[in-house]
Each structure stands twice: as C-alpha cells, then as structure tokens.
C-alpha cells in the first residue's frame, strides 16, 4: 500500500513540472526550428518552407554582422568593467568596517529596479542642456557631451547604465564567494606575515576563481540579452551605432514582421554564444584555472 502511494507521489511531484516545460517551452522551441527554415510574413499566405535561405541571407546581411560584432565589443567592455569594479568593491567590503551592511544593502538597490524606469532616469541625467552628467563634466572643464546622439558616446552611455545596474550583482556574488572561504587560511597567512596584497593574490583570488568564472558566465549570458535600455535610451541609434544583436533581431522580427528571418538570427546568436562558452571554459581548464 505505502509503496504504491509513495510511487504515485514520486511521479505526481515531477511529472507536472516536466510536462509544463515540455508543452510551454519545448514546443515553441521546436516550432522555432521550423520557423528558421521558413519565411513567414503577414499577408503572404502562411508559412513557406524555404530551407536554408534565411541563413544564406544572414551571411550577406552586413547589418547582422555589424550587430554581432557590436554585441561582442559591448559585452567585453561591460564585463571587464563590472568584474574589476565588482572585485575591488567586494574586496573592500570583505573588511570589518562600520556601516558595512548599510553599504551592502544600498549597493543592491539598482539591480532590482525596472530597467525601463531606470533608462528613463538616465535619459534625464544624460540630457544635453539640463542633465547633471554634463554639469558634472563642466566642473573639470570638459565640454558638454552629446551623450545619446554621438556614435561612440551612445555606446558609452549604455555601458554606464549597465555598469550602474549590474555591478551590484558582481559585488554581492563575489563578496559571497569571498565570505565562503575558510577563515583559518587567512589567519595562517597573517601569522606567516603575508601582506594583504599577497593574501589577495595567493589566497582570495585563486580560491574564489571557480565561483567568479561562473558569475562571469551568468553575467555574459544576461549581457547579451540587453534590450530594454537600448529601446528606451537610443532606439539603436544614431544610425545603427547601438544596434546590438538582440535589438536588431527584435526590429526584424517584430517591426518588419520577418519572423522566420528573426528566428534564424536568434539561433545563430545562440550557437555563437554557446560556442564561445565552450571555447572559454576549455581554455580556462587548460590553463588550470578551473577544475
């Protein structure tokens, strides 16, 4: 009796979840595999199977390659900045100091706020005539910057907003990784007379590295998904200067309603990201940074 009830319970717990995911996520996924091989535009009479034509078109689409390249540049700059700042501030917060908890909590705030609302606020800050960003620069005698309408400065603006919003994630997770390290190690190192810099180089960093790598991977996945800030702040402009891949896919898929082509592009993006990860993890393993 009990055995049967147990068995029923066992599957009653997991089957609904698996079925839910299968129905809601796997079906669209398989369907998108079909879509990427088709042309589907409203008014053309349904889906037309075209084989690999979409991919051939992607190969010749200069705007796609521009967007892909831009995405990589953006993510690389972003992660370098966020990782350095995050590690610096986490190292500082690791110390015993007054107000530690206050800082930690206030640093957390940007991460939880709606990216749309945040983008509007930054739009006001970047305002050419009335924004505090240019006012701040004027203290240093720097001429006002056209934050959102210059080709380079628009990208920089997006990076600033992202660094503002997501460095907190780095700070808090890296700090958690540091705090999970056994204290005895630090004690022993201090007894041996090691300097703080040495301790950081030889103990904190190498031991926390696997976690830091995971955090960077998670952030990379999310950084490629950037959309909201572009939509509100620059709309991909000026020209195509801030048209990252995700935004270009959105434009093609939902503005031009070229759903087949958009789907094909998002698969290319996914494959490129996964390939990059595998390369990244393999090379980290080779140099021994990761188990």
């Amino acid at each position, binding site marked *: 009796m009990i055995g049967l*009830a147990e068995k029923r*319970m066992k599957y009653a*717990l*997991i089957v609904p*979840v*698996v079925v839910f*995911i299968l129905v*809601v*996520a796997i079906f*669209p996924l398989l369907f*998108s595999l079909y*879509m990427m091989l088709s042309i*589907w535009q409203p008014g053309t009479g349904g889906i037309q199977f075209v084989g690999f034509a979409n991919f051939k078109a992607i190969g010749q689409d200069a705007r796609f390659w521009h967007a892909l390249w831009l995405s990589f540049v953006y993510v690389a700059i972003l992660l370098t900045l966020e990782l350095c700042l995050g590690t610096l*501030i986490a190292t*500082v917060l690791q*110390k*015993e100091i007054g*107000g530690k908890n206050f*800082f*930690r909590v*206030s640093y957390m*705030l*940007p991460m939880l*706020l*709606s*990216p*749309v609302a*945040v983008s*509007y*606020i930054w739009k*006001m800050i970047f305002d050419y005539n009335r*924004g*505090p960003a240019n006012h701040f620069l004027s203290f240093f005698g720097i001429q006002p910057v056209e934050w959102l309408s210059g080709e380079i400065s628009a990208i920089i603006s997006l990076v600033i907003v992202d660094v*503002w919003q997501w460095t*907190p994630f780095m700070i*808090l997770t890296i700090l*958690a990784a540091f705090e*999970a390290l056994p*204290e005895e190690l*630090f*004690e022993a190192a201090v007894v041996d007379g090691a300097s703080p810099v040495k301790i950081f180089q030889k103990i904190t960093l190498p031991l926390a590295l*696997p*976690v830091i790598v995971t955090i960077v991977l998670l952030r990379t*996945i999310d950084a490629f*998904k950037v*959309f*909201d800030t572009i*939509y*509100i702040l620059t709309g991909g402009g000026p020209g195509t200067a801030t048209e990252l891949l995700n935004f270009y*896919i*959105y434009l093609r*898929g*939902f503005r031009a309603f070229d*759903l087949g082509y*958009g*789907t094909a592009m*998002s698969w290319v*993006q*996914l494959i490129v990201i*996964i390939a990059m990860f595998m390369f990244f993890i393999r090379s980290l393993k080779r140099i021994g940074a990761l188990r």
Partner: protein
Amino acid sequence: MASPYFKVQTMPRKIGIYIVLILWFIFAIFPIYWAITMSFKDAPAVYGKKPTYLPFVDFKPTKKAWMHLVGKAVGGEAEFIQMPVLGEKLRYLRNSIVVALGSSVLTVAFGIMAGYGLTRYEYKRWKNDDISFFILSQRMFPPVALAMPFFLLFTWVRLIDRLPSLIIVYAIMNMPIVTWIVKEFFTDVPKELEEAALVDGCTRWKALYRIVIPMAVPGIAVAFLFSFIFCWNEFLIALTLTFKTAKTLPVGMAGLTTLRGPLYWDIAANSLVIMVPPLIVTVFANKYIIRGLALGAVKQ
C-alpha cells in the same frame, strides 16, 4: 571574523576604503535621488541654466507631477490628459500585479514540487541530474528567441494580449532559478523529521505541507521575491505579447514619450511608481535577496 586580515589597521587604509565605498554609494544612489527630486520640480526648475539639485535651496518643490499621476490637473493647466503609465482605471498597474503574483505563485508551486521530488526521491528512468539540467537549461535561451514562437503560439490559441500568456511565459523563464533555490533549501531540511511523521501515519503530502514547507519558508520567500521582481520588471516579452488590454507597467511607460513631450517631472514620478515594489523589497527583505544571490552563485 576573528582573523586580523579582516581588520583595517592603519588610518590611511581606512580612509581609502571609505573613499571607494562612498564614491560608489554616490554613483549608485544619485540616479534615484535625481528621480525623486525631479518628480517635485516644474518647468522653471528644470529648464533653467543649470541643473538644480537641492529642494528648497535650488528650487521650490511642487506636487504637480504627483497630482498628474493620479489624474488631476493642477490649477491653471489646460485640458489635461491622464498620464497613461498606470493605464485607464489603473489597468496597467492591475495587470502588473496580477501577472507578477500569478506567475510567481505558479512558479513557486511547481518549484516546491520539483524541488521536493528531486531531493527526496531517485528517478531511475530519467536520473535526477538530467531533470535538474533540463529545468536549468531553460535559462539559456535569449527571450527574443522565445518571443517569436510564443507570439505565433498564443495567436493561435487566442491568448495573445491576455494576461495568462504572460503568466505562463514568465513561469517558464523563472522556473530554473526558483527550482534551484527551493531545492537548495529543501536539502537542508533533515529527512528524519518527515520520516518520523510518516511513521506516525502522516501522508507524504501532509508531511510536505506541515513540516518541510514551514521549515523552508525563508527559501521559498527568496524564490518568490526573485520571481516577483523579475515579472514586475520584464519588458521584452510583455512588449511583444501585449498591445492594449494586457499591457504591464513597463510597457505602458515605454509608450510615454511618444504621446507627450518630455515632461521630465511626470516621467520621474512614473518611474518612481514602477520602482516601489523593488524599493520595498530592498528595505525590508534585503537579507533574502543577498542570501539568494549567494546561493545562486556560490553553491554550484
């Protein structure tokens, strides 16, 4: 924290640490401060020669933007159009609340079931690790890749521009993190407690309901908060799957500038309204968030 490594010994070093911390504090908090002060400004304070920073010193605060937000015109203003951000009769606000609550409840319920199953039973046919990986893998796909098939799917089943579509999609997107967190907390609940209850004639469901869930409340709260905040802030899916009736706050807000000129004080008030739930979470539940983050990253 007994080790001297964590103590700051010299004064210059201490000052250096505080400079770093305070600089980042200013950077992190300034935009929020700017939005708050902006929401109490009006034209003269905004369109002056220099930006104004301090209320009462630099400019005289007014309640204008907040009156607009609740749909009231302020004396002397011509015909006023209610700010669209909250929607007609607060529709967008209601949509956002329904979607975030509905989706989070659904996800957490599934998360509890899967988490309990994966920590207490061994699934021979599929293997527990495979199921975990299957659930986690949902995180990889960029939302824009999911948005297009979902758009067609929901058009066919006539759920497009209706709240259930958003609730379902968000549930899928949050399933990995929620299951992950709940599972971690269930692992820490000692099995002996339930086994004792089972011997006493308790059913499994009852044991889960009466013993395991109450003991894992912090974990469930963490998972719920993460899910809620995600749903509340999500933009891309909501933008593509809703047009009119099911719009959520971020989508309502994104349509703002096209309808009216850049009335900065109104925009500031609107952004602050969307930020209320995250602000409440930060003030009252920050411990849970920090714990959840530590869990997600450190325990691999």
